[in-house]
C-alpha cells in the first residue's frame, strides 16, 4: 500500500488511487447503481429508418403488458422549452434525422418488461431515401464557419501551392481514418427523478455542470433546479462530455412518473447510434522540402462528415499549423452533411486523425529525402510557433525523439523496408511525433475547509473518469497546504459543490488544480488575517475562483511526445503484431507517476487500436453501423498489447499553470497510430494510408 507522504511531497509521487479499494471490490457507485426507492426502467424506441418521419405509433399491445407504466412517444412527450439543439430536442415531432434516433420509450416496473414491451410497439414511417455516403468528391461539401473549440476553418501562411510546385522533394498523398466509436466500458447511464420543479440526475458524465447547463434550459429550469450527481464514471473518452439525447429521454420519462426514479442505460448496440463518435476523415496532405530536407510547404485539406440535424466540425488539421517549421502552411476543412447521427468528441478530436496523416506523410517524405525519420523531424523543429509566431512555453519534442530513440534502440536501424525477418514474420520499426495543446477552461471555483483537528476538505465539482482526479487534486491541495496527503479529503462529482468545468481537452488538472491552489492560498490568507495564524475551533473555509493565467497570450503552450513501435507482420496472412512500444512525453510536471503512466499508456493503446482494429462500418443504404458490438467492433484485448515502455522527460514550465503541469489524457493517442503504420511500412514495404491496417490491405 502507499506509504505516508511527507508534507509537501505528494505531487509527483506514485500514490495509488484513493478510491482503489472501492473500485476493486466493485463498491464504487456508478450512475446506474445508486439505490433509490422503487425505481422504474426505461427502454427506448429507436428509428429504423434514417430519413423521414413517424406517421403512426400503436402502443396498445405494449400498454396492455402487465408491469408497463407508460409509453412515451412524440404524441405525449413533454414540450421542451428550447429546441435549438436538434440532437437533444427529441420527441418534439415525428421527424427523423438519422437511424437509431429516439422516437419514444417504454417505462415499466422491470427491465425485462420494458425491453419486451418496447418490441410490441408498432411504428409506421414515411421514409425518404437516406444520404449517408461519405466521399470527398461530393459536390455539396461546405465550409463550416468555425471548427470545434473555436478554431479557424481555413488558414494559409505564405504560398504552399507555389512552394510545393517548385520543391526538390515532395509528397502528396491521401490518408483516411474511419468512423470510430468511443466505447467506454460503462454504457451511458442515467437515473432521473422529478420532484415538483426539480430534476435530479444520477449521471455518467465527464462534467456535472456541463450536464446541468445543457439540461436546464431544455426543461425551462434555472440551472440550480437541476442536481447532477456523478462520483464515479466508467470511462468517457469524450462521449460523455457533450450530453447526448439519452439523458434528455430519461428526464422526459421521469416527468411522466413524478417522484419515481427512472433508470436508463444504453445497451452496447445503442452506443453506436446516439452517443457520439469520431467523424471519418479524408485528408489530402502535401509536404515539400528542399534538397537538404528542410520543409518548404505543409498542407492538409480535410474532408469530414457531420449530421444534417446538427453541425460538429472536427479540427483535424490544426496540428499541421504548428508542428513543424515551414514558411508555407495551408489547411482547409470541408464538411459533408449527411443523414447520420451527430459526430462528437473522441479522445484528441482533431489531433488524433490529423497527426496520423501528418506523421505518416513525414515518414514518407523522410524516405524520399533519404533521411532518417527521427533526424528529419529534428531538422524541421521550429524556433517559435509557426502559427502564432509566439515562443513556446516549453517544447520538448527533440528531447523526446532523442530519448525515445535511445530507449527503443532505434539507432543503427536499417533504413530499407523488408530488411529484417524472423521466420514468417517481417519485422520493422516506426516513429511518430505527438502533440496536444494545453487547454484551460473557465468558470471554476473551489472551497477549501480547514478543521481544528488538522484535516482539510476540498470541494470542486470536477470529474474522475478514470483520470485520477480524486487522487491528484488531493496531492495538489496537500502540497499547497504543506500537510500530509492523507489529511486532505476531496469532494467532487456533484453540482452542489463549487462550479467546475468538465473533463475534456485534457484540461482538468490545469483548470481544477489552478483553482484549488488559489483556494488554498485564500484560506491561508484568511487564517492569517482573521485568526492570527491558527485554525479556530469551529474550522474555517475559503472559496476562490480560477485565476487568469498571467502568461496566457505570451506563449504557445503544448505538450509533446514521441512514439517508437516495433511491428511484426506475418508474410502469409498479413497479421500484424506489436510486441513493444516506447513512448516518451514532455508534459511539464507530472502530478502522479503511477496514474500518469497509466493514462499515457491508455492513450498509446487506443492509438494502436486505431491503427489495427477500429472501424465502424456504415451501411450507406440504411445509414446504420453494422458492426455495432464489441465482437465485431474490435478494441484491443489483453493479448493484443505487448511490452509498454512509458516515460517522460523532466520539463520545468512555469508558464502553463501554478503546478507546471500539462494535460496528459489525450497526448498518448496522438501519433501512436502513425508510428504503427510507419513500422508496418518498414516491415513490409507496403504503405497503408487507410486505417485500420487490416490483413487484406497487406497481402493483396
Amino acid at each position, binding site marked *: 500500500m502507499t506509504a505516508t507522504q511527507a508534507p509537501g511531497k505528494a505531487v509527483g509521487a506514485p500514490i495509488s*488511487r484513493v478510491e482503489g479499494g472501492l473500485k476493486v471490490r466493485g463498491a464504487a457507485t456508478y450512475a446506474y447503481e445508486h439505490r433509490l426507492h422503487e425505481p422504474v426502467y426505461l427502454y427506448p424506441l429507436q428509428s429504423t429508418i434514417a430519413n423521414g418521419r413517424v406517421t403512426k405509433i400503436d402502443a396498445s399491445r405494449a400498454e396492455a403488458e402487465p408491469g408497463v407504466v407508460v409509453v412515451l412517444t412524440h404524441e405525449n412527450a413533454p414540450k421542451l422549452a428550447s429546441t435549438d439543439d436538434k440532437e437533444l430536442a427529441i420527441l418534439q415531432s415525428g421527424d427523423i434525422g438519422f437511424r437509431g434516433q429516439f422516437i419514444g420509450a417504454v417505462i415499466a416496473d422491470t427491465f425485462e418488461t420494458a425491453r419486451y414491451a418496447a418490441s410490441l410497439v408498432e411504428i409506421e414511417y414515411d421514409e425518404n431515401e437516406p444520404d449517408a455516403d461519405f466521399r470527398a468528391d461530393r459536390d455539396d461539401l461546405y465550409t463550416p464557419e468555425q471548427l470545434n473549440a473555436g478554431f479557424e476553418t481555413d488558414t494559409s501562411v505564405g504560398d504552399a501551392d507555389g512552394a510545393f510546385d517548385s520543391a526538390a522533394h515532395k509528397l502528396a498523398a491521401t490518408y483516411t481514418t474511419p468512423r470510430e466509436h468511443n466505447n467506454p466500458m460503462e454504457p451511458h447511464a442515467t437515473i432521473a427523478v422529478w420532484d415538483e420543479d426539480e430534476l435530479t440526475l444520477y449521471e455518467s458524465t465527464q462534467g456535472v455542470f456541463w450536464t446541468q447547463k445543457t439540461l436546464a434550459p431544455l426543461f425551462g429550469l434555472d440551472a440550480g433546479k437541476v442536481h447532477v450527481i456523478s462520483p464515479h464514471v466508467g470511462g468517457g473518452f469524450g462521449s460523455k462530455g457533450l450530453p447526448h439525447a439519452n439523458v434528455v429521454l430519461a428526464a422526459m420519462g421521469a416527468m411522466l412518473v413524478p417522484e419515481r426514479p427512472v433508470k436508463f442505460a444504453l445497451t452496447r448496440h445503442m452506443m453506436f447510434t446516439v452517443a457520439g463518435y469520431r467523424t471519418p476523415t479524408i485528408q489530402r496532405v502535401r509536404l515539400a522540402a528542399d534538397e537538404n530536407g528542410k520543409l518548404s510547404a505543409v498542407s492538409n485539406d480535410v474532408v469530414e462528415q457531420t449530421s444534417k440535424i446538427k453541425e460538429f466540425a472536427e479540427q483535424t488539421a490544426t496540428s499541421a499549423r504548428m508542428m513543424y517549421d515551414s514558411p508555407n502552411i495551408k489547411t482547409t476543412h470541408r464538411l459533408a452533411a449527411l443523414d447520420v447521427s451527430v459526430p462528437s468528441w473522441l479522445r484528441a478530436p482533431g489531433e488524433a486523425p490529423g497527426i496520423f496523416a501528418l506523421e505518416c506523410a513525414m515518414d514518407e517524405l523522410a524516405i524520399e529525402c533519404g533521411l532518417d525519420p527521427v533526424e528529419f523531424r529534428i531538422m524541421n523543429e521550429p524556433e517559435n510557433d509557426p502559427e502564432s509566431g509566439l515562443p513556446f512555453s516549453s517544447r520538448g519534442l527533440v528531447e523526446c525523439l532523442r530519448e525515445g530513440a535511445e530507449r527503443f534502440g532505434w539507432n543503427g536501424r536499417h533504413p530499407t523496408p523488408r530488411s529484417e525477418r524472423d521466420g514468417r514474420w517481417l519485422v520493422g520499426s516506426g516513429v511518430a511525433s505527438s502533440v496536444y495543446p494545453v487547454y484551460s477552461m473557465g468558470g471554476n471555483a473551489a472551497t477549501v475547509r480547514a478543521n481544528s483537528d488538522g484535516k482539510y476538505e476540498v470541494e470542486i465539482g470536477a470529474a474522475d473518469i478514470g483520470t485520477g482526479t480524486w487522487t491528484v487534486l488531493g496531492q495538489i491541495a496537500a502540497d499547497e497546504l504543506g500537510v500530509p496527503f492523507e489529511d486532505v479529503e476531496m469532494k467532487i462529482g456533484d453540482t452542489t459543490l463549487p462550479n467546475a468545468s468538465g473533463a475534456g481537452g485534457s484540461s482538468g488538472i490545469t483548470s481544477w488544480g489552478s483553482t484549488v491552489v488559489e483556494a488554498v492560498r485564500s484560506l491561508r490568507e484568511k487564517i492569517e488575517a482573521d485568526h492570527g495564524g491558527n485554525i479556530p475551533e469551529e474550522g474555517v473555509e475559503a472559496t476562490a475562483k480560477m485565476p487568469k493565467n498571467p502568461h496566457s497570450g505570451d506563449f504557445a503552450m503544448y505538450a509533446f511526445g514521441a512514439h517508437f513501435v516495433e511491428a511484426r507482420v506475418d508474410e502469409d496472412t498479413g497479421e500484424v503484431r506489436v510486441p513493444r512500444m516506447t513512448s516518451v512525453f514532455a508534459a511539464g510536471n507530472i502530478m502522479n507517476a503511477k496514474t500518469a503512466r497509466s493514462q499515457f499508456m491508455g492513450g498509446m493503446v487506443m492509438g494502436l487500436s486505431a491503427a489495427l482494429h477500429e472501424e465502424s462500418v456504415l451501411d450507406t443504404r440504411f445509414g446504420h453501423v453494422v458492426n455495432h458490438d464489441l*465482437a465485431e467492433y474490435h478494441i484491443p484485448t489483453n493479448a493484443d498489447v505487448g511490452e509498454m515502455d512509458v516515460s517522460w522527460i523532466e520539463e520545468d514550465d512555469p508558464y502553463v499553470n501554478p503546478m507546471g503541469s500539462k494535460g496528459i489524457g489525450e497526448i498518448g493517442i496522438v501519433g501512436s497510430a502513425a508510428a504503427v503504420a510507419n513500422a508496418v511500412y518498414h516491415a513490409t514495404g507496403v504503405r497503408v494510408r487507410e486505417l485500420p491496417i487490416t490483413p487484406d490491405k497487406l497481402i493483396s
Partner: protein
Amino acid sequence: MDAEITLRVDGEEHRLTVDTRTTILDALRERIGNTSPKKGCDHGQCGACTVLLDGRRVNSCLTFAVAHDGAEVTTSEGLAENGELHPMHRSFIEHDGYQCGYCTPGQIVSAVGMLEEVGNGWPSHATENVSAEGNAGLSDDEIRERMSGNLCRCAAYANIVPAIQYAAEHGEGVERGGNA
C-alpha cells in the same frame, strides 16, 4: 413468468423471485442489490459481468438466474473476507491495474478463476505443450491469453499482467499452477 429461486451470493443466502428472463447479472444488480459485477455489453463480449458460478468464471449476463437455483455465486465484493481485501485486490491497486474501474471487478474475479484453471492444469492457446499434465505454467503470455475475455477500454492490460503475476507469486491463498 416468475420463478422463486435461491442463490448463495458471497456467502449469504438469498431467496428471491425472478422473471424467467432475468440473467444472474440483473438478479444480482437489480434484485439483490449487489452491483459489484458490471454490465458492459449484456452480450458476453466484454467480461465486465464475470462472477464465479459454483467456483468457475462465467459471464453472468449470459446466464439465466432461473437455470441456477441453489447456485453459489462469488463476486469481487465476496473475495474480500472480513473487510480485508483479497491479495488480487491489493495487487491491482498497487500495480494500477485499472483506471475508470468499471471492468475491474470482472477482471479480478476472472483472474482468480483463471489461476484456479492454471492450477488444475488446463491448457490455453498460449500453452506450448498441451499434453504436459498439470503444468500449464504462468508466463505473461499465458496471462494475456487467458485474460483476453475481459476487455479494458482504459487499456490497463500492461499493468494487469504484472498485477496478476505478483498476486500469484506473493498472495497467500492464491493458487499458482506449475512453473512459468
